[in-house]
Structure formats: C-alpha cells, structure tokens
C-alpha cells in the first residue's frame, strides 16, 4: 500500500510516495536520493542512519516514513551553514575522527543531538551527580555515543572531536 507524504529534508520540502512499510531511512535513500544517512544494519544496532528530527537524534532505519508525514529531518549534509561546516563536523575533520567515513554522518548527527541532550541536563548511566549540572566529560561522551558503532575504530578521535566541539 502506498501513501504520499511530505518531509522537509535539510531545509527542502519534498513530497514523495512511499510503501507503508518503507522506513524513513529507505525513504531518504531510495526515494529521495538523500544518501548522507547510511545503512549499516537496518535494525537499530549500529547508529549509521542517525538523523536529527527537531534536534533529537533518531534512528531512521527504525522509523516508518508514513509515521513522520510533515516532519523536519536534518542529515549530516544539512547541518552546516552553506559552505561553512557545522562545528562538530569541523572537529571531526580536524581530529581525523573517521577513516572509511561510513559511520561518520551518523556519528556527527548523534554528537550534535547528544550535546544538546547534555545541555538540557539529561542524565546517563555514567552521570555521577544526578542533581548537579551535566557536563560533556570523556566518560559521558563515550557512554552517550555508544549507539554509534565505528568498525574503523575511530573512537578515541571521535571523543577528542566531540570534546573539542562541546560548548
């Protein structure tokens, strides 16, 4: 069964027809040709498909496109300001926080979402003082970024990049 929906992707309004089974990830990649979100597992196990919806990080492979009619989606391709890289993307470049680059757009979207979660005081498993302000320490970054696998093993550089980009 097909449905027609609209999505605003990286600032651009797009109308598309999807199978009701189509995931948001396949809608972006196979229907709209937006390939910044990657497919690593299609099962919510790797984080490669991470995009932002209203500043929250979302696994596009676990979201059905029809359930997000009208949503605003930001991918790694739309994070920056024109030619200007988003500070997190810039820090990934500076720290060489990637190798093959396949997990990278997901890592960067996840990092942006994660930093705003920290700024909003969301707790994590490693937060020491639930009462105090939450800070983007290395331990917090590692914990909160563990939904994004990197088989190239760029984790130490990913942590350094996020630390550098953290406000």
């Amino acid at each position, binding site marked *: 069964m097909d449905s027609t929906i609209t999505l605003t992707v990286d600032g651009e309004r797009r109308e598309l027809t999807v*199978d009701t089974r189509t995931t948001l990830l396949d809608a972006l990649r196979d229907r709209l040709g937006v390939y910044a979100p*990657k497919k690593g597992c299609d099962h919510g196990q*790797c984080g490669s498909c991470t995009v932002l919806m209203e500043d929250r990080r979302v696994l596009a492979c676990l979201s059905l496109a029809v359930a997000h009619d009208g949503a605003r989606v930001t991918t790694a391709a739309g994070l920056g300001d024109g030619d200007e890289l988003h500070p997190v993307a810039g820090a990934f470049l*500076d720290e060489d926080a990637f190798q093959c*680059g396949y997990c990278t757009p997901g890592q960067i979207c996840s990092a942006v979402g994660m930093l705003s979660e920290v700024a909003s005081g969301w707790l994590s498993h490693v937060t020491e003082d639930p009462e105090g302000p939450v800070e983007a320490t290395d331990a917090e970054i*590692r914990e909160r970024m*563990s939904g994004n696998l990197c088989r190239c*093993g760029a*984790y130490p*550089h990913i942590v350094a990049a996020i630390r550098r980009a953290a406000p």
Partner: protein
Amino acid sequence: MIGTEGSGAVGAPMERIEGRAKVTGTAPYAYEHDFPDPLHVHPVLSTVPRGRVRSVDVSAAQGLTGVRATLTAPDVAGTVGAEDREFAVLQDGEVFFRGQIVAAVVADTPEIARQAATLVRVDYEVDDHEVELPPARRELYRPEEVNTGAEADTARGDADAVLADSTVRIDRTYRTPREYNNPMEPHCSIAVWETDPERLVLYDSTQGVHVVRRTLAEVLGLDAERIRVISPHVGGGFGSKGSPHAHNVLVVLAARALPGRAVKLALTRRQMFSLVGYRPNTIQRIRIGAEEDGRIGALVHDVVETSSLAKEYAEQSGVCSRMMYTARARRTTHRLAALDVPIPFWMRAPGEAPGMFALETAMDELAYACGLDPIELRLRNEPGRDPESGLPWSGRHLARCLRQGAERFGWDTRPELPRGHRDGDWWVGTGVASAVYPRLTLPGSEAEIVLERDGSHTVSIGAADIGTGTWTALTQIAADALGCGPDRVRLRIGDSRLPTASVAGGSSGISSWGSAVVAAARAFRDAHGDRPAPGARSRAETPENPEREEYAMYSFGSQFAEVRVNADTGEVRVPRILGVFSAGRIINPRTARSQLTGGMVMGLSMALHEEGVVDPRFGHVVNGDLAGYHVAANADVGRVEAEWLDEVDPHVNALGAAGVGEIGIVGTAAAIANAAFHATGVRVRDLPLTPDRFLG
C-alpha cells in the same frame, strides 16, 4: 630517495582530501550512485547446511505486483563458470553451507523484493553435515600451501629431541573463534548490463576494482575490456572486500536478465555472515622448550583450523612462529578441516592476528615459567637474521619498540607477581606482546601521469581507499615525486578504466601503488624534462625490487595493555593500550595514527567481544548481527595511543615506507589477555575474554 628533495608533502599530517565529503555524508559509496528507477535484487539463502535443492517454487513471489524476475538454478545454470564453487551461483542445486544463495528475486522496490524473497519455497534433499572444529567424522588434511603461498609445514632440527632435553617446557593449546569483518558499509553493488555489444558496468564496494574485473571476466567468460568496475569510496572492508563474492555474481545475473536496467544489491548485515568471508576459528598447540635463562631451544606451532568444503581457505596462523624468535629446532604445521560452512576469507592481518595471539600468550607463560620479565624474555630471543630464510633483516626494530613502549607505558612500576594489585572491586594488571607484519609489495600496478593545461598533474591508478587514506597519501607521494605542491596533483583512483592496481590487502597498498607513482614520476621527468608541455604523459609499473631476495622485510611493534577485571562480575575493562611500531617511513602521520589506533581497537574487540557462535544442529551463526555479534563500541574503549620509530627502510621500496593497516591488530589481544592474567592470575587461552572466564 623520495621525500628528501620534493615539496615536503610526504611526512606531513595532511588532512584527508575526501574528508569534507565524508563529514557531510556526500562521498558516494557503491549503493549511492543514482539511476532512474533502479531495480532491487534480494537473495534467498539456503536453510540447510548440506544437501541439494530439489525444487524451488517461485509462483507466489511472481504473483506479487512489482516483481520483475525470479532467478533459480534451472533459469541460469550453465551461464557462469562453475570451477570455483564460491562464484558458481545458481549453477546447480548443490548446497555446501547454510546461507548459500539458492534463488533470488528482482523487483521495483527493496520492500517488494524482500517480501517476494520470503515467498519463495525451497525444497531440499538434506545430507548429514559437520560444522564444528575439530570435526568428529572428517579427516584433517594438509593444504598444498597456506594463504600468501607459504608452505603448510616447515621443520628445522629435531624439535622433539630438543623439547625433551629442555629445562623449561610450555605445552599449551589456544583457541580463537570465528571472527567477522563487519565493515560498517555492507557489501553493495549496482550492475548495469548492456547488450549489443555486451558490456557490464558494476559499481561495487571493493578493495580492488581490477581484482573484481579480472574475476568476473573469468567467471562470466567475458572479455575484461567489456567490464568496468567503479568504486570511489569504500565503507571499510578489512579484507572481506578483497575479492568479489557470490553476491557480485548474483547482481550480474540479475542485470543480465533485465538488460539496460540498473540493478541494486545491498546485502543485509545478516546475509554478510554467510556470504563475504570471515576469520576461521583455530586450535593452536604451541610447545616451547627453553633453558632457565629463557633462551628458546625448540618451538613447535601446530595449527588446526576451519576451511569450507565449498572452497579452500588456509589461514597462515603458524607463519609468525617461523621468524619471530630464535630456536635451533623448530616445526610449524597447518591442518584444515573442510566443513559444511561458509567460505572463510581474509580478515585484517590474516594469519598474524590469531597466530600471534597464541605465540605471544605462550611467550608470556614462558616468562612466568622462567621467572623473567616478559620483555627481557623477548630480548633474549632476538634473532640476528631471519630464522626462516637466513637473510639479514631490512630493519628489525622489535627491541627498540619494546624498550620505548616500556618507558612510555611505565612498565617498570608493575608488581612482579600476578594478582598483586587490587583497586576497590577491581583487579588491575598490565601485559605486553610483540607485533609483526610482513612488508609486502604486490606486483602488477601501474600509474599514469598527465600534465594538464592549468599546470596541474593528473595521477591515475586503479587503487582503493577503504578508509586507509589512499586518496591523501598517494597525492602526497605524487607531489614529492613531481616536485610540486599537493594542490597541483589531481589523483584518480577506484575505477578499472584507470591503470591496473593490485588489491588493497596485506598492508601492501602504499608500497605497491606508491612505488608505481614514484616510477611514473621519474619516467615523466626523464621523458619530458624540466619544462614539460601540457598533455605530456608517462606511465610506469611498480618496479621489481632485487633486494627482496637479499633481505627479510618485516614491520614490528610492541603492544602494552592495562586491564581491570571486576572481582565479583568478571567484567574486563581496558582503560589503556599503547602500541609502538616500526613501519618504515610514515607517509602521513595523521592517517597512519588513525589506522594504527583503529587496528588496536579492533584487537581490543577481538580480545573482549568477538565470537561467531555456530549452532551445530543447523550450521548457522546464532548471533549473526550487530546486536548479537558485538564489536567494540565507544564505551568499551579507553585511552589508545600509537607511536612509531623515526625510521626509513632503505631496502623495501623507493619510499622507505611500509603500510600500517594491519600491524595494529597484531598482538593486541595477547597483550590484553596477558594483562588479564597479571591482574587475576587466571590464564585465558581461548578468545574472547568474556567475564565467565574469570569467575569460579
């Protein structure tokens, strides 16, 4: 030698050329090349480990709107060469392992293709199967040779006699499980088949466009000139993309059935566990005979490992024991079990990774048995020449790596005895291991240089960047060789139309392709002088290196680990690992550091997490996805540091450089296991180091 005269690009920490495209997600990987209305093929995999397909019923699948074709053996048998069982896709009904391609569906959308694939009914005649090592009912055999072409067995001196006479003896068996490459980008291809004349274009996620072209030409019986393979960016491979696999043949069969249409194939993560190779599980018995002062007299390394009945793969797990340490008597053997399992293949440092886990754990056991510091034990067994070939080393700097590492790591502060340091709930220990990897150069690469009108040079070679930094490193090498800035070099790689390149494997890329680029630059200067005209063009191949006959060429390293083991739960944490490597000249310190630390992280993952668990009843991997087969996540990894010696290997190639893609994983698991022993007094000889090993 290059780098002394040029623009100073070699050795500079240049940012990745394709970095901006990668951090914005706009670098196109194989699946991401756009075609109007592409079709999608979804394979149907066997659900029995051994037998024959009796019949396939595709009627329900064909009844689904949007299905364009179904592929079964009766449809396509006889259309591809069947000698190599891996590529004999749908050529007969024979089933060699669970997860083999037995049918496929092509449809308008991925959803329809996938649904239709579930509607295909396959009926089997089932045979008995054997999937476990060691096999109960199947003979082990000695392969003709092991991967890399080395001999299966070697012997020098009477190892048994020397063992019997030795004062200190180690006789232990180590096991490594099946491990899966799991690059983050699944293996993907897009095929377009044109008729009249027949032509195939394949966008593929591969470590070698020319390897794919050559293999497919053979399998399809098609002239290589009619095949073009394109692969500008590759989302990791670690060996699994070093050869085409069955799915490449399938996507071509699908495209051939629907000429003119682009057909896309993206393997699912689960399908990768049976179709793209894995590191076979090994059982390794190591015997060492030594004197009380630690000097080794005899070393025996016997390997038993999994291969597939469909196609032989012989991991060279024992070769490291032929050259690492002195011993006047020595024996190494490899025995295979040809099982009803998927075909194993290269995974990062095939041979060295599992082999050095066993050898370096055994060395640690020997150190304790002799009452020696593990570093001192290794220093006492340093061979002056390669024990295997008798040749001098082009540069053996293991001792320096061990000493420098010990100093940086703070080795001398460790308690001498195991179980000597407890911090709250945690036992704390440190461990060390050596690393080694051959300095390989593959023949047959060629580079071309053309001077453009704007004064820049186009440098072309069909090389691959699988995250290794090839785009950047070859640009740096070309800049220095041409005596211009890197901004005056335009590199082209990843297309079989470009001059031939060897596969990105065996850490050989930088040496093989880099040497070809240097040779092409020399030819360019010779032919066109100092003032070449636009359009000037030269080509050259990787030169032969006569010094290969005169020197044994290896990279070495030391790996140090700090490990904490929870006294109550057995949880193992690795707050810190350090590697010091000798790898010749480093072309780009920024990307080299990433490769080395990345290899160490994969080694940590091998030590703590990775194990493909096979159900002996059905022959499948029970944990065949990224939830069940855990690879190290961010929170599993602590401080990871890599350093290297300031070194140039004058014999290895014109660059004095060796690749660093693999040595980072070698020895890491042993260093961690040795540290876990130092922490707890519990010796784990079977990977991975799961918590249960430290309890009870």
